[in-house]
């Protein structure tokens, strides 16, 4: 029997008492004292003789769903079959992640398990966003008296994705300088068939009579002009989620879940519009979800977001966007609280030709929500707001569109107000100017 099979605490107490009694018996030359050791000795002996020899269990796990939403109940069913010798008392425990709450039932079960016997039980849990591999079950077997204790972990199958909530946004108006050839909803800065007026050109044989600009013909009777509409196509869009420790952990709380919520909403809306969307999670590791289209891609991105965890990376300085994934002039959307060191990197992205939008959950408002409203706190918040305003202003000066999101407001409200139509300077430069 392996030494670790013994229950150290109980054996220690019994052994210590027996040892002390014997010492006192010797010291006082009182033979009767040894009789006092007998109950302890018999108790230990009975436990040692009846201890479990080995644990051989088969555990099957089934879940009511492998992907769910935060707070949604998931019913777990565990089926344990003893394929080894009988166990007098066995504790089967599902070591749940700390983020789980048990709503109903218990993840632990203490029972006797005869050889060949099967026991099945269910319990219900709910948890926060994340990826939870449920790969083992803790089993502790002991004799009836609890003297000999054997502990082991039995492997099981199962994992649970708790995906972030996806809020549906209105149509996002983004204008990357380069679009793909497929038709979509993003203005392509090229004339052709579309909805929005783009310009006029000289009439060419074959042009539809309906597309002739008759006002222009009235002014210039010697030639005809044809109306052009702006083509709408799909675009390459890269979402970059900042999951770095230094930007996301504020005090003892994390703002990452807000960033994840925003990323999920943007990914869903952009994919629904037919765009080619990829995701980069920049935390402990750099994790790419290759750009692609459609519902399958939506699922991939949501799974990647479920896995997103805060990591120790320091800055974006080593960030390289592979051109084979995102050609120049693609649209990049960075979801980050943003710190001052990041400005240079974002500006570099911009100078590399990418159109950049920064969706920035406001860490100051977030932190302020958890602090007492004192004068000193208000002053500190004011200073931090000023610092943040400087950072965001520097980004805007570099041509980066910034969405400053006060997380106390719903993201869809902020996104619909700021991203549903192009900002004024874009319209002034490239939209109204072309009319």
């Amino acid at each position, binding site marked *: 029997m392996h030494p670790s099979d013994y229950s150290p605490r109980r054996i220690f107490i019994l052994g210590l008492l027996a040892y002390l*009694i014997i010492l006192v018996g010797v010291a006082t030359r009182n033979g009767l004292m040894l009789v006092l050791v007998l*109950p302890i000795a018999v108790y230990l002996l009975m436990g040692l003789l009846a201890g479990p020899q080995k644990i051989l269990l088969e555990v099957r796990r089934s879940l009511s769903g492998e992907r769910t939403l935060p707070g949604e109940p998931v019913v777990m069913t565990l089926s344990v079959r003893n394929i080894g010798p009988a166990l007098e*008392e066995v504790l089967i425990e599902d070591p749940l992640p700390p983020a789980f709450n048990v709503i109903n039932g218990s993840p632990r079960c203490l029972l006797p398990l005869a050889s060949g016997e099967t026991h099945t039980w269910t319990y219900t849990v709910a948890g926060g966003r994340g990826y939870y591999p449920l790969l083992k079950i803790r089993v502790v077997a002991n004799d*009836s008296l609890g003297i000999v204790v054997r502990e082991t972990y039995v492997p099981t199958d199962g994992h649970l994705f708790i995906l972030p909530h996806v809020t549906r946004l209105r149509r996002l108006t983004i204008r990357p300088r380069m679009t793909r050839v497929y038709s979509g909803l993003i203005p392509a800065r090229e004339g052709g068939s579309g909805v929005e007026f783009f310009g006029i050109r000289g009439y060419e044989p074959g042009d539809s009579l309906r597309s002739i600009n008759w006002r222009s013909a009235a002014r210039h009777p010697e030639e005809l002009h044809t109306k052009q509409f702006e083509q709408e196509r799909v675009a390459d869009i890269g979402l970059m989620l900042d999951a770095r420790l230094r930007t996301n952990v504020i005090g003892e709380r994390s703002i990452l879940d807000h960033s994840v919520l925003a990323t999920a909403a943007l990914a869903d809306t952009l994919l629904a519009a037919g765009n080619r969307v990829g995701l980069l999670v920049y935390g402990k590791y750099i994790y790419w979800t290759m750009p692609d289209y459609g519902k399958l891609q939506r699922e991939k991105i949501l799974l990647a977001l479920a896995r997103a965890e805060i990591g120790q990376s320091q800055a974006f300085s080593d960030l390289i966007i592979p051109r084979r994934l995102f050609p120049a002039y693609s649209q990049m959307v960075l979801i980050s609280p943003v710190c001052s060191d990041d400005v240079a990197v974002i500006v570099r992205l911009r100078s590399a030709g990418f159109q950049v939008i920064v969706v920035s959950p406001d860490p100051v408002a977030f932190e302020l929500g958890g602090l007492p409203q004192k004068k000193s706190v208000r002053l500190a918040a004011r200073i931090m707001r000023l610092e943040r305003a400087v950072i965001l202003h520097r980004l805007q000066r570099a041509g980066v569109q910034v969405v400053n999101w006060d997380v106390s407001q719903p993201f869809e409200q902020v996104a619909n107000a700021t991203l549903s139509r192009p900002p004024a300077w874009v319209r002034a430069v490239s939209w109204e100017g072309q009319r």
Partner: protein
Amino acid sequence: VTRFLTLISIVLADVCLGWGFISSNYGFALLAVAALSGLWVFAESRAWTWGSDLGFAAMIAAAAGGIALHFSPGWMIAAALFALVAWDLSHFNARLRFVGAETFIPILERRHFTRLGLVLILTIVLSLLTMQWRVHIRFEGVVLLVLVTVGGMTYLFAWLWGNRTNSGGS
């Protein structure tokens, strides 16, 4: 049932100890014994398992003290035995908190009580035999036995502590 039996065992251990003390004109120690069992019962009601460890150790120490002072050995051994039963049931009760289905409680309890009953019977029989035996064994023999036991116990402790250190505690 287990909880009830735990309390009964604590009271019985207390009564045996108290009776042994009173019959040897040490009635003034009765208050200390009563306070001890009261504390144990209180710890039990709060589900503090360390309370039962301390209570058990104190009861055994009191019984050993009684034997050292030549009190009635029968009462002292009975007190130690009931203290052991109470300590065991207290730990068993703590384990029963993890029972998933109520149907397992009677099965586990039956098995446990049977094993504990066997320990009681064996202890009583062996105690009676040993008390008889004591008259015929010379003290040198007892010392030799004690030395062997001490050696074995020391080895056990070293082994347990080594295991505890290797596993990082448990």
